[in-house]
Every structure is written in C-alpha cells, then in structure tokens.
C-alpha cells in the first residue's frame, strides 16, 4: 500500500491511513482525543449520513487542490495531463488500499458491505467525473447505507469510514478533472471551500484545539522539543 498521502492542501508526507507507518517504535505518551460513540449502536444510519456529508465536503476540498494543480490543461504531454494519468492510477491504488484496510486491517466489513462500498465508490467517481454533480450528490446522500450499517459494529463502522474516505478522495481527483473538462473554465466552476476561505471560527477552533493538545501532551510527559518536530 502506498504510504504517501497527498492532502487537499497539496503537501505530501509520510502518512498512512488505517495502519502504522513502518519503523514506528516505542510509544512515550498518549492523550485522549475524543470518544467515538455513534448515536445508535446497531444501524447507525444517522451517524453514517453525517459522516458521508463530511466525506462529501472532503471531496470538495480535495477537488480544490486537484483543480489548482491541473488547471491550465489536461492534454497528454502537459503537466495537467500527467496529473490526470496519475489521478487515475491514484484512484486504483486508493481503491485497493481502502478495500485492503476494510478487509485485512479492520476486518469489520462483511464481504457484501465491502462490495457495496466498492460499487458506490466507482459509481460516485464516474458520476462526479462526468460532471453530473447533482446525481453524484444523490449517490452520496441517498445510497442505502442502512444496509451497511445493519451488520456494522463499531469496528465495522470504522472500516466503512476509512474505506469511504479513501474512495471519496480518489473520486475527487477524478471529479476535479471531469468538472474542469466539462465546464471548461475556472470562472464557471463552483469552487468548493478552500483553505483560504476557511472561516475565522474554524481557525479559532483549530488554535484552541492545538493549545489544548500541547497542554495535554506536555502533561502526559511528551517533551516540548519533540512536539515541535516536523510541524507543518
């Protein structure tokens, strides 16, 4: 599995979703981030709908990144064309990685649910790539996730989330290409929320979260100088 994750903001680093990066060793501290507790344990339909809405927003963010990078042409021999080819290959890698996580690491998805997720990812990617945002949105919002939720334990739910996240990010890569080709002009493209447009409230939340994290990590015995290593 590819252990380099490209984030919507465009940077890449050694990050692995669903598993530990190679070489991670002795743990020195841990802090509680939050409690994950779906509103209804078995058949957490509302929770999943919410998660899907969030995933859809993530698709928009990822799309912004791809659009910024490929805008200016997607013809073979251009940078945009190369990115498009890379996008296709990323889609396949990501799809496989997502399935691998669901099947091997998390182990909580039934084969039927895993197939359903794979089918959904494919359909959504095709719809977004064709520029049919309305249908794609419906696909994300109205797909019968209750069928997945029914057998889902928390473990299964986590597997589902991870899988969906990976697939939707890949869908964004293809979708951004499809939209830019379909609409032809950046000015006509309904740009999703970008980091630059991030609301003041969100920035404040991030700042608050980071100071809380620093405080708790220090309290848990994580050295201050280690905390500063590799900070973006």
């Amino acid at each position, binding site marked *: 599995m590819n252990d380099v994750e490209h*984030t919507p*903001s465009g940077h890449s*680093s*050694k*990050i*692995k*979703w*669903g*598993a*530990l*990066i190679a*070489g*991670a*060793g*002795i*743990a*020195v*501290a*841990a*802090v*509680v*981030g*939050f*409690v*994950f*507790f*779906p509103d*209804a*344990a078995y058949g957490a339909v509302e929770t999943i709908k*919410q*998660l899907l809405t*969030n*995933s859809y*927003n*993530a698709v928009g963010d990822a799309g912004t990144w791809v659009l910024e990078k490929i805008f200016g042409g997607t013809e073979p021999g251009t940078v945009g064309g190369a990115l498009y080819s890379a996008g296709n290959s990323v889609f396949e890698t990501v799809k496989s990685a997502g399935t691998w996580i669901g099947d091997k*690491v998390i182990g909580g998805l039934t084969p039927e649910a895993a197939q359903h997720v794979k089918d959904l990812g494919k359909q959504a990617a095709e719809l977004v790539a064709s520029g049919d945002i309305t249908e794609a949105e419906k696909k994300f919002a109205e797909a019968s996730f209750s069928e997945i939720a029914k057998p889902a*334990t*928390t*473990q299964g739910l*986590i597997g589902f*989330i*991870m899988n969906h996240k990976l697939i939707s990010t890949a869908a964004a890569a293809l979708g951004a290409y499809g939209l830019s080709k379909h609409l032809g002009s950046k000015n006509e493209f309904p740009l999703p929320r970008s980091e630059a447009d991030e609301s003041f409230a969100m920035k404040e*939340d*991030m700042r*608050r*979260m*980071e100071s*809380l*994290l620093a405080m*708790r*990590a220090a309290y848990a*015995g*994580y050295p201050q100088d*280690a*905390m*500063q*290593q*590799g*900070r*973006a």
Partner: protein
Amino acid sequence: MAEHKPLDPDNVARVVMLAFGNMEQGGMYWAYVAVRPSRYEEFKRRMTGKTYNIQNFVKDEFGEVVVSGEGGLPPREVTKQVALLFGVPVKQLFADIDPLEAIARGVKKLEENEDNT
C-alpha cells in the same frame, strides 16, 4: 417489555487517542488510534511505562489504527480530517473528559432507548 442483553461498550464505542513515540531509525511518530473501552486503562498504563512498542497495538487487541505519520505532531489537515471523518467538532477535541464515564453514560442511554422500543 422485551428483554435486552446488556450492551458491550467494545461493540459500540472507542476512545480515540493520539499516541506519540520514537521511530526506530530516529525521530518521532504520531498515531491516532481507536482504543477499545475495555482496554483503555491498560493502554494508559502501557504508555506510562514508556516501553510499549506501538507495532503490537493491533496484535494486542487494543483496537484499530486510524492514521499515523512521522513527526512530532500530526499536520493540522490530518487532525481536521480525523475530526470530519468521525463527525466530531474540532473544538471538542482534546477536551478534559473522562472517556469511560462518557461511554458509560452513552451505553446507559442506548439501553434505555432499547427498553422503550
């Protein structure tokens, strides 16, 4: 009224934690991990000992790894994505909570809801 079996917290909840440690080849790593409620206290104890190899986390059945990476702290974008994925507002991350108490409250509420159905 139908009788319901008590809910196992491990089936309905996780304590999502951010762990830090040393890379084998030098430098630091971070990892968001989802810890089973029944193993939370033991995981905390292991952290205090500063001898636990995180590579054993899944094998030791502490829970699941959400995302991990090199460096002292996760990039902001990753933390934001984790919050989005689990539907938790960023401002609620790293709050001063007793996770087991929060889970016990949630389980009780779920059981009451089941009793009312």
